[in-house]
C-alpha cells in the first residue's frame, strides 16, 4: 500500500538544511560539529521511524513537484530504499564522530567545507535511496558526484586535482554518456520512469534493444565500480580517510550498486531479466571484477589502496547476488550492502587511525603496530574476518546467502568464484593482521612512541567492529527488510 | 526562347551586377574596395525591386489633375527601396567609420597586412 508521507523528503532535507547551519557556524568549530552530530542523529531517527511501515509491506511516497509533464521529482520509501538509507544514515553518525577526531587531530584545513559537503552528500545518498523514478535518481546521483568532489580533492594539491579530474570524468562522464541516454531510451520505450515491482520495460522494445539499454545502465552507474570503470575508486583514495570510509565504502559506491539493483528489480524486473538471460550474463560479468580486483588488491602496499580494490571486488558481490535472481541470492546481495558497509568502514577507520597515530600509509611499515595500537588492530581483524566471511562476523551471513543462491541457480562456476575470492580475501587481509601482531617493530621506528589514536577516532571504529559482530548474531532487522524487498520483487 | 530572354533580361542584369558586387565583397583584399563591392551589391537589389514594380507604359505614381485614366507603376517597391537606400547609406557610413579606425590603428587597409599585424 502506498502512504503519502513527507518523511522521505524530510530525511533528505534535514542534512541539506543542516549544511546551511554548518556553514553559518563556521567560526565556531564546536557548534559546527554539534550541528553535524545533531543532524546525523535526526536523519537516522527519521529514517529509522520508517522501518515499521515498510516492514508491514507499505511504502511511503511523496511527490515534490512535476518537473515536466509526466516526469516528477518523486520519492518513495520502500523496503529497499529504507534498507540502504538506514545503513547509510546510521554509519553517518559514527563517521561524524570519527571525522571530528580525525580532522582535529590532523589539524586539517577547510573543515567547514568538509562538514558541509559531507552533509549534502548524505542528502544526496538518501535522495538516491528514496528516488521513485529514474530522473529523481539521476538528479541525486549527479548531486552526489558533484558534492563529493570537494571532499575527494580536499588536499587542494596538484595530485588531488588530478584525482578529482579522474573522479569526475568517470562518474559525471559515464552518467551523462550512458545513464542519461539509457534513461531517455527507457522513457521513449516505456513511457514512464517510475520504479515498479514488476519492471516497466517488459515487452516495450525488441530484446536486443533492451539488452543494449541494460548495458548502458550498467556502464552509466560507474559508482558501482564494475571493471573496467573501476579505476576512479583507487584514485579517490587521496581523500581524507573518513571520506574514503563513508563515501567510498558506503554512500557513493553503494549508491552505484543500489541504483543497478533498482534497475534490475524495478525497471527490468525479475522475469524480464531471466527471459533475456541478462541475470546470468551480469553474474559472469561481475565475476571477472570480483576475481581480478582481488588480485589487484594483493599487489597493493598502500593500505587504503588495498582496501579500495577490496571494495571494488566486494561491490560486485552485491550485483552478483541480485543477478542470480534467486531468493537467497537476492537476499545475500542486499544484505551484503549493509554487511560490507559495516565491515569496510571499520577497516577504513582503522587505516585512518593508524595514519593519525603514526602517519603511516603502507602495509610494509606496519610491523608490530598491533602491539602499539591493540584496539585499532583488533577492530581491523574483525573487519578482515568479515571480509573473508568467517563466523562469527557478519560477512559470513551474506556470503552464506550468496553461496546458497548460487547453489539454487545450480551454477558451480559462480560457487567457485565466490569461494576463490574468499581465499583471495584471506590472502590479502591476513598478512596485514599477522604483520601487525606477530612481527617485531622495524628498527627504523623513530624515538617517538606510537600510541593509540585519540578517543574520537578509536571509539567509532570499535563501534562498527562490534556492529559487524552483532550483525552476525542478530541480523534480523536487516534480514527482515531484505526479505520484504525480495518478496515484493518476486511477487510483483 | 527569345520571348523568355526578352521578358527577363532585366533580372539577369541585376543578377550579374550583384555577382560583381558580391565577389568584390568576399574576395577583395582592400577594405574600402569591399565596401564598394557592398554598395554595388546593394544597388543591384534596388534595381531588382524597382523592376518588380514596373508596368509597361506606366507613369510615375503621382496624381495630376486630368490624369485619372493613366496607368501608374506600382508605388510600393519605390517606397521600400527608399528605405533600403537609406539603410545602405547608413551601413556604408558605419563600415567606413570602422575602416577609418582600422587605418588609425594599423596604418593600412589591406586585409592581409592587418591579419599579419594581429598575429604579432
Amino acid at each position, binding site marked *: 500500500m502506498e502512504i503519502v508521507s513527507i518523511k522521505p523528503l524530510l530525511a533528505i532535507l534535514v542534512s541539506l538544511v543542516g549544511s546551511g547551519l554548518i556553514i553559518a557556524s563556521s567560526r565556531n568549530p564546536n557548534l559546527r560539529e554539534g550541528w553535524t552530530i545533531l543532524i546525523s542523529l535526526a536523519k537516522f531517527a527519521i529514517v529509522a521511524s520508517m522501518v515499521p511501515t515498510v516492514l508491514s509491506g507499505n511504502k511511503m511516497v511523496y511527490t515534490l*513537484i*512535476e*518537473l*515536466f*509533464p509526466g516526469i516528477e*521529482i518523486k520519492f518513495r520509501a520502500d523496503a529497499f530504499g529504507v534498507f540502504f538509507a538506514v545503513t547509510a544514515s546510521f554509519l553517518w553518525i559514527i563517521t561524524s564522530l570519527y571525522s571530528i577526531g580525525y580532522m582535529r587531530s590532523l589539524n586539517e584545513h577547510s573543515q567547514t567545507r568538509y562538514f558541509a559537503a559531507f552533509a549534502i552528500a548524505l542528502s544526496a545518498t538518501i535522495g538516491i535511496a528514496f528516488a521513485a523514478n529514474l*530522473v529523481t535518481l*539521476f*538528479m541525486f546521483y*549527479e*548531486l552526489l558526484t*558533484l558534492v563529493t568532489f*570537494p571532499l575527494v*580533492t580536499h588536499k*587542494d594539491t596538484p595530485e588531488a*586535482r588530478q584525482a*578529482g*579530474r579522474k573522479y*569526475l*570524468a568517470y562518474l*559525471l*562522464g559515464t552518467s*551523462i*554518456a550512458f545513464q*542519461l*541516454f539509457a534513461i*531517455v*531510451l527507457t*522513457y*521513449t520505450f516505456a513511457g514512464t520512469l517510475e520504479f515498479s515491482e514488476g519492471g516497466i520495460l517488459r515487452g516495450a522494445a525488441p530484446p536486443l534493444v533492451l539488452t543494449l539499454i541494460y548495458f548502458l545502465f550498467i556502464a552509466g552507474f560507474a559508482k558501482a565500480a564494475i571493471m573496467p570503470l573501476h579505476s576512479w575508486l583507487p584514485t579517490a583514495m587521496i581523500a581524507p580517510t573518513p571520506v574514503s570510509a563513508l563515501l567510498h565504502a558506503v554512500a557513493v559506491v553503494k549508491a552505484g550498486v543500489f541504483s543497478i539493483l533498482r534497475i534490475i528489480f524495478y525497471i527490468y524486473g525479475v522475469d524480464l531479466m531471466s527471459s533475456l538471460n541478462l541475470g546470468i550474463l551480469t553474474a559472469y560479468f561481475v565475476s571477472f571484477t570480483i576475481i581480478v580486483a582481488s588480485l589487484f588488491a594483493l599487489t597493493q602496499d598502500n593500505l587504503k589502496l588495498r582496501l579500495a580494490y577490496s571494495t571494488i571486488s566486494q561491490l560486485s558481490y552485491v550485483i552478483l547476488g541480485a543477478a542470480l535472481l534467486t531468493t537467497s541470492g537476492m537476499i545475500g546481495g542486499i544484505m551484503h550492502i549493509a554487511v560490507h558497509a559495516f565491515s569496510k568502514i571499520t577497516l577504513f577507520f582503522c587505516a585512518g587511525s593508524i595514519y593519525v597515530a603514526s602517519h603511516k600509509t603502507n602495509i610494509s611499515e606496519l610491523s608490530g603496530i598491533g602491539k602499539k595500537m591493540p584496539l585499532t588492530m583488533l577492530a581491523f581483524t574483525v573487519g578482515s574476518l568479515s571480509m573473508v566471511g568467517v563466523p562469527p562476523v557478519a560477512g559470513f551471513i551474506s556470503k552464506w546467502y550468496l553461496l546458497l543462491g548460487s547453489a539454487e541457480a545450480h551454477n558451480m562456476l559462480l560457487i567457485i568464484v565466490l569461494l576463490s575470492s574468499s581465499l583471495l580475501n584471506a590472502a590479502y587481509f591476513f598478512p596485514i593482521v599477522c604483520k601487525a601482531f606477530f612481527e617485531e617493530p622495524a628498527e627504523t621506528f623513530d624515538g617517538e612512541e606510537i600510541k593509540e589514536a585519540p578517543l574520537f577516532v578509536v571509539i567509532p571504529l570499535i563501534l562498527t567492529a562490534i556492529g559487524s559482530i552483532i550483525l552476525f548474531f542478530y541480523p534480523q532487522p536487516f534480514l527482515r527488510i531484505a526479505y520484504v524487498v525480495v518478496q515484493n520483487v518476486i511477487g510483483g | 526562347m527569345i520571348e523568355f530572354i526578352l521578358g527577363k533580361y532585366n533580372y539577369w542584369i541585376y543578377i550579374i551586377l550583384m555577382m560583381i558586387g*558580391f565577389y568584390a*565583397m*568576399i574576395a577583395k583584399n582592400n*577594405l574600402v574596395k*569591399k565596401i564598394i563591392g*557592398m554598395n554595388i*551589391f*546593394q544597388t543591384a*537589389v534596388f534595381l*531588382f*525591386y524597382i523592376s*518588380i514594380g514596373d508596368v509597361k507604359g506606366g507613369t510615375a505614381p503621382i496624381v495630376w489633375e486630368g490624369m485619372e485614366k493613366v496607368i501608374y507603376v506600382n508605388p*510600393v*517597391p519605390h517606397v*521600400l527601396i527608399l*528605405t*533600403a537606400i537609406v*539603410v545602405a547609406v*547608413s*551601413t556604408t557610413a*558605419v*563600415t567606413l567609420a*570602422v575602416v577609418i*579606425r*582600422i587605418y588609425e*590603428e*594599423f596604418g593600412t587597409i589591406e586585409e592581409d597586412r*592587418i*591579419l599579419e599585424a*594581429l598575429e604579432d
Partner: protein
Amino acid sequence: MITEHFPILLIVVPLTSALSTPLIGTLNKKYCWYTAIFSISLSLFMSLYILNAVMHTGRISYWLGNWEPPYGIEYAIDYLNSYVLVIVTFIALAVTIYSKWSVEKELPEKTVLFYTVYLLLITGLLGITITGDIFNLYVFLEITSLSAYTLVAIGKKRNALVASYNYAILGTISATFILIAIGYLYMVTGTLNMADLSTKLPPLYDSKVVLTALAFFMAGFSIKVALFPLHVWLPDAYTHAPSVVSAILAATSTKVAAYAMIRVMFTVFSPEFIIVRVNITHILSWIAAFAIIVGSVLAIAQVDIKKMLAYSSVAQIGYIMLGIGLSTKLSVTGGILHILNHALMKATLFLVAGAVIYKTGIRNIEEYRGLRREMPLTMLAFTIAALSMIGVPGTVGFVSKWYLLLGALHEGKWVFALVLILSSLLMLVYFWRVIENIYFPKMHVAVAMDGGDKKKELPYTMLVPILILALLCIALGILAFIPLKIVGMISQMLVG
C-alpha cells in the same frame, strides 16, 4: 485604454529614450544609465503584460496608424514572439543593471553614446520580434545590426575593429540576402504582411521564385544566427566586444535571429512546406549537429574565456536549430525552450567573464586559479551556469537537453541523440577546466604573499543581476513547468 497600445509602446519607449539619451547625457552622463533602466523596465513590464494577454486571448494584432493589414504595417503577437519579447527585455534589463560600472570602466569617455546605441540595439531586437510585416522586420534587423557592429567595434583591443568589420560585411551580406528573399516573395504575392503571405503562398509552393526566396532567407538568417559554417564572425566579435555587449549579443541577438528564422520557416512558409515538400528541416538538423560538435570541439581549444564561451554559443545555437530541424513536437519544445535557457546561461557566463575582467583584468582560463576565494558569489554563479550548460539535472540546461534527446529518440534518430550526448561530454571537459581552476587555490606563493585572502566581490549593481540569472538557471530547471506552459503552446502552434 493605454494597454491596447502596449505593442507599439514597447518599441517606442526604448526608442525615445535612445533618442533622448544624448540630451540627457549632456546634463550628466550618469543619468544615461537610469534612463536605460527605466525604459527597459517599462518594456519588460509591457512585454509581461502582453504575454499574459496573449496567453489568455490568443493572437494580438496591432494596426500601426490604424491602417488595416495588409495595407498598413501590423504588429502581430502570438505565443512565440510574446515569449521571445519577455526573454529579450528581461535579459536586457539584467545586463543593463550590470552595465553601470563595467561601462564606466571600459568606455569612460563614451558612456553617453554607448547607451544611445545600446538602447537602439534593444529597440531593434524588440522590433524584429514584434513585427508582423516582413519588410519592417528587415528595417529593424538593420537597426540591430548597425548598432551591433558599432558596439563590437568599441572594444578595448584593436582586434575589435577587425572583428567588427568582418561582422559588418557578413551581416550586410546576410541582410541583403534577406532583402532579396523579401523582394522575391513580394514579386509573386504582392504583399509584405506575414499573415497575408502565409495565405497567399500555398498555391505558389511549386514556384521556383518561392523556392529561391526560401533558400535566401535560410542563408541570410543562418549568418545572423551564426549557424555553422557561417558562424565565422561570431567568435571574434564576442571575444573582443566590451563585456556588456558580449553578454547582450550572446544572450539575445542570436536568439532573436533564431526567432526570425523560425517565424519565416513556420509561419510565413508552412510546416507542411518546409518539412514535407522541400524537407529543409532535415538539412538543418544535420547542419545543426555539425555545429554542435564543431563548436564544442573548438571551445575546448580556447584559452580566452570569452572566446571559449563564444564557441560554446556556436554549439548551443546548434541545439536550438537541431530542435527546430527535427521538427517533432518534443524537439521543437526543446529547441524553443533552449532559446530561454541558453539566454539565461550565456548571459550569466558572459557577465561573470566580464566581471572578472572588471575586477582583475583576467581573461585567460589558466589565470582563473583561486578566484573562488576572491569572488565567491560570482564564481558560484559561474559554476551554476556552467553545470547547467553541461546539463546537470535540476538546472535549465537539463530540461532542454532532455526534450531534445527525447525528440531525437522518439523519431528513432539515434545519431542526433549521440551528438547531444557527445556534446555534453565535450562541454563537461571545457567547463570543468574552468571550474577546476576556480576552486583550486593559486600556487602557494601567492597565498603566502597575501597572508590572507582578500575578498574582492563586485559592486551590487553587478553582482545582483548575475546572481538572479544564476538563480533562475536553477529555479526554472526545477520549476520547468512554468516556461513549458508557454513553450508547449508554441510548439503546438508550430508543428502541432
